[in-house]
């Protein structure tokens, strides 16, 4: 079949037409080989524009479509759909970005036009080497594995479980609930934590579509979106590993506390009555706030921001729960004197500032301090610090509560290996994009919720868990097949020398090694087309569909000519 390339240049209203001399572009590309039609249009992404393109493709029998318009991020999908509607394979299409990369970056019309010509020619050169790619569909399993039985995991499970979707909730400790089981009350409403927890846990218990594994951990996780194979190991000795399949995985493994022993000047584990926030929550929950000698403390110092400098991030919740601790103390010991030492006070949101202000009062201090050091003074503790003005001060208290930074729980690194998702700053699971993909990850089908992604309060944790559920509910629909990525890597059996370099650089675990043939093999369903293996393969055995050597070479050659 003869190649008939149709080139369409979008004016994008005044956006392109005012900065690029479109007629010059048309003139420059009209006589190129295989170019059958070159036309301009005022707005190709409009309904009229789409109709125009479909008609043109059919009228001229266009086999390959080049559009010179905006960024592929903006309308690549739109034009690929137009191709499909007009009966052209959507991969026989190429977009030249003459808006963001030409019209919008200079006032010099001549330069913009010259570059627009280059980019359009480059797209024409490239498209000659395009090959049609076919979409595939595969069966998917709608069930979900939720790792971590804290509030994030519980919430996600409750949202996801339904008669046609089984949820497997795996918790490493002996009971569900996670971190918040230690809390008496939540801030800022100061309502009993058990209210939230009990209701949610009852709901889990009653739900036939949630299977809970306590004292259990994930031992193996293989596969890809829609088709994961899971192996669970339970601590109870006699029970063998449990195997099941799921379509998606939710990581909700929560957080733990930074160990204040790492900073010796806080005196943790060195002096009596220096305790962490979690130890204080537990003490408070037991009903009595006491010193080691059984007496009630008359004065308490709460140190915020413990480990913040070392970790490099603010843990978001410590200021608020420290203020909550003031309430706990005042409730149980009305005469107690409480001093808060913070380096920055973090009380954002619609109700937190008010909560902070209402907590202030007699015998309650908030002191901005640095260079804090705790020493023993008789039966008491002395807090040495430097205040905002730089003067050195000293306060003697009965008890010191340290509010340490939150850290991802210890099993994060194992799970990061199992799932192929990376750990970002502080070791927290990294989301796909801070703003565009806050609960998805670099591995399709693996989602993150709660403190495993970063320090978070209870409402934010629940919001994120619900967002994860939303993502899964909309993409993993029971009975619906899924379409894996089409632009995937391929490793040529005849060129592969079996050095396994590609296995080391693949971020998605999609390459396996065929020991019989001594060649690497790509699982096209898991491959996301990142191109790492292509770049690393020394012998050019790996290539990426739609980004083949020739396609890129022809495009670049024309662009830099």
């Amino acid at each position: 079949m003869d190649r008939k390339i149709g080139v369409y240049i979008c004016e994008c209203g005044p956006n392109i037409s005012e900065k690029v001399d479109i007629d010059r572009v048309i003139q420059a590309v009209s006589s190129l080989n295989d170019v059958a039609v070159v036309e301009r249009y005022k707005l190709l992404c409009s309904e009229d524009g789409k109709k125009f393109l479909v008609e043109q493709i059919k009228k001229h029998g266009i086999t390959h479509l080049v559009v010179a318009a905006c960024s592929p991020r903006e309308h690549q999908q739109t034009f690929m759909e137009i191709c499909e509607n007009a009966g052209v394979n959507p991969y026989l299409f190429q977009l030249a970005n003459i808006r963001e990369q030409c019209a919008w970056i200079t006032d010099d019309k001549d330069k913009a036009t010259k570059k627009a010509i280059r980019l359009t020619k480059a797209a024409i050169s490239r498209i000659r080497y395009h090959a049609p790619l076919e979409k595939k569909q595969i069966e998917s399993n709608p069930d979900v594995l939720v790792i971590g039985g804290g509030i994030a995991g519980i919430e996600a499970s409750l949202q996801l479980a339904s008669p046609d979707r089984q949820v497997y909730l795996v918790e490493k400790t002996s009971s569900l609930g996670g971190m918040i089981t230690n809390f008496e009350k939540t801030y800022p409403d100061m309502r009993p934590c058990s209210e939230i927890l009990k209701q949610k846990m009852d709901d889990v218990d009653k739900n036939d579509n949630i299977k809970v594994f306590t004292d259990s951990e994930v031992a193996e996780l293989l596969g890809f979106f829609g088709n994961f194979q899971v192996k669970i190991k339970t601590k109870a000795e006699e029970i063998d590993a449990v195997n099941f399949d799921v379509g998606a995985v939710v990581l909700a493994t929560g957080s733990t506390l930074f160990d204040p022993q790492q900073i010796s000047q806080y005196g943790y584990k060195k002096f009596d009555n220096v305790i962490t926030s979690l130890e204080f929550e537990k003490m408070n929950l037991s009903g009595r706030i006491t010193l080691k000698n059984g007496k009630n403390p008359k004065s308490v110092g709460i140190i915020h921001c413990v480990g913040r400098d070392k970790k490099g991030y603010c843990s978001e919740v410590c200021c608020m729960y420290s203020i909550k601790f003031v309430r706990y103390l005042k409730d149980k010991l009305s005469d107690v004197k409480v001093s808060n030492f913070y380096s920055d006070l973090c009380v954002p949101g619609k109700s937190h500032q008010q909560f902070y202000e209402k907590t202030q009062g007699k015998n309650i201090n908030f002191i901005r301090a640095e260079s804090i050091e705790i020493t023993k003074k008789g039966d008491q503790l002395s807090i040495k610090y430097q205040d905002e003005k730089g003067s050195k001060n000293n306060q003697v208290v009965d008890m010191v509560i340290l509010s340490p930074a939150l850290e991802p729980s210890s099993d994060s690194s194992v799970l990061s290996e199992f799932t192929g998702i990376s750990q970002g700053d502080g070791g927290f699971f990294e989301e796909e994009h801070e703003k565009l993909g806050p609960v998805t990850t670099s591995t399709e089908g693996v989602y993150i919720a709660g403190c495993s992604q970063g320090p978070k309060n209870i409402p934010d944790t629940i919001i994120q868990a619900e967002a994860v559920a939303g993502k899964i509910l909309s993409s993993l629909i029971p009975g619906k097949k899924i379409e894996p990525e089409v632009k995937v890597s391929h490793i040529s059996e005849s060129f592969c020398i079996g050095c396994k370099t590609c296995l080391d650089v693949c971020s998605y675990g999609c390459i396996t090694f065929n020991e019989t043939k001594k060649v690497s093999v790509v699982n096209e369903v898991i491959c996301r087309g990142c191109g790492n293996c292509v770049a690393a393969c020394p012998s050019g055995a790996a290539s990426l569909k739609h980004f083949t050597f020739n396609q890129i070479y022809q495009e670049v050659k024309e662009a830099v000519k």
Partner: protein
Amino acid sequence: MNSYSEKPDNKGAVISAKTSIPDSIKDLLKKAMENDVFDAVLIPMRVPAGDSFVYVLIQDKSLIKDASPFSPIMSVQGAKAVSSITRLGKGNLKIAAIMRPCEIRATVELTKLDQTNLENITLISMDCPGVMPISDFTKEPEKAMKLYDNAIKNLDDKIMRPVCQICDKSSMVSGDLHIGTLGAKKDTFFIISNSQKGKDILDKLGITPKEKIDSWQTKVKTISEEKQKKRKKAHKDLKAQIGGLDNLLDTFSQCINCHNCMRVCPICYCRLCYFDSDNVKHPSEDYLEIAKNKGSIRFSPDTTLFQMGRMMHMSLSCVSCGSCEDVCPMSIPVAQIFSMVADETQGLFDYIAGRDTDEPLPLRTYKEDELHEMEDAHD
């Protein structure tokens, strides 16, 4: 599997040579085959015509007497032979490979790249005096043999290849066993184990490493330091000579694109070199266009690109074995250039090619905190 990272023994065995050191080594190998310690031996041997040496895999122990553990030339890099034998699996024969330190280092690199399997291979190195350029040898082989023997006796490297003259890793680096001739008393040599496998083999042969080896260690250290100085100076001079794009283009303008260097390189393990593939062959209009733009285009084109490309692909694993230079029909100092670049690229990662099978290849290892000095290299 093989780990040479542990400190080698501070003791070795001293073997007295009855007739000559090579004969004594061959006797030991024969004995090892008789005792089923090895099923076969991979060792250099002079070809019947006398004008070259090749590797032979000997399974008939009566043939060992014809082998030449110290061959004067390196017409085949031993790592390629080991790879030919074991690339598709370890096989069931226990093989001793008698090779020079640079050949063993290349073997170690190929092991990391899954091109050899060392499970059944015992690597035995020796103190290498260097080898002569192949072309010097083939001109007058008999005369060359005498020259070489004299050079070994007097530890004189003037007749050796330039890259051998600046080799600072000519003694034990990796491998299982080492034959130390430096610092040994007349008509004796040391056998030193460098891995658990090496120790086990000495044990099976009834050899107990109980003698001190400081005289060998001292001599090796002296020579290596001397060569290191020479190497640094040679590289500095070379850099002055070929540095900069113009000098580089000049240096490689003699290249005839025969790709011999790539074919003999032990590290160039690709099935099809990228530079032999269709990816570097272009439609005629491309050539015409370059000719139009630049006035003319030379053929073969892209010779410097080939050299640079090969350098990028293999310099981190280059062991400076010199094979490439030996086969260059245009006498381009390829090995000297590559050894200079390799020292620098490997230095960036604190990596020494062929030091240990357990040492990961830098390009396959991702460290977040490294190479910051390269981040603003374009400024």
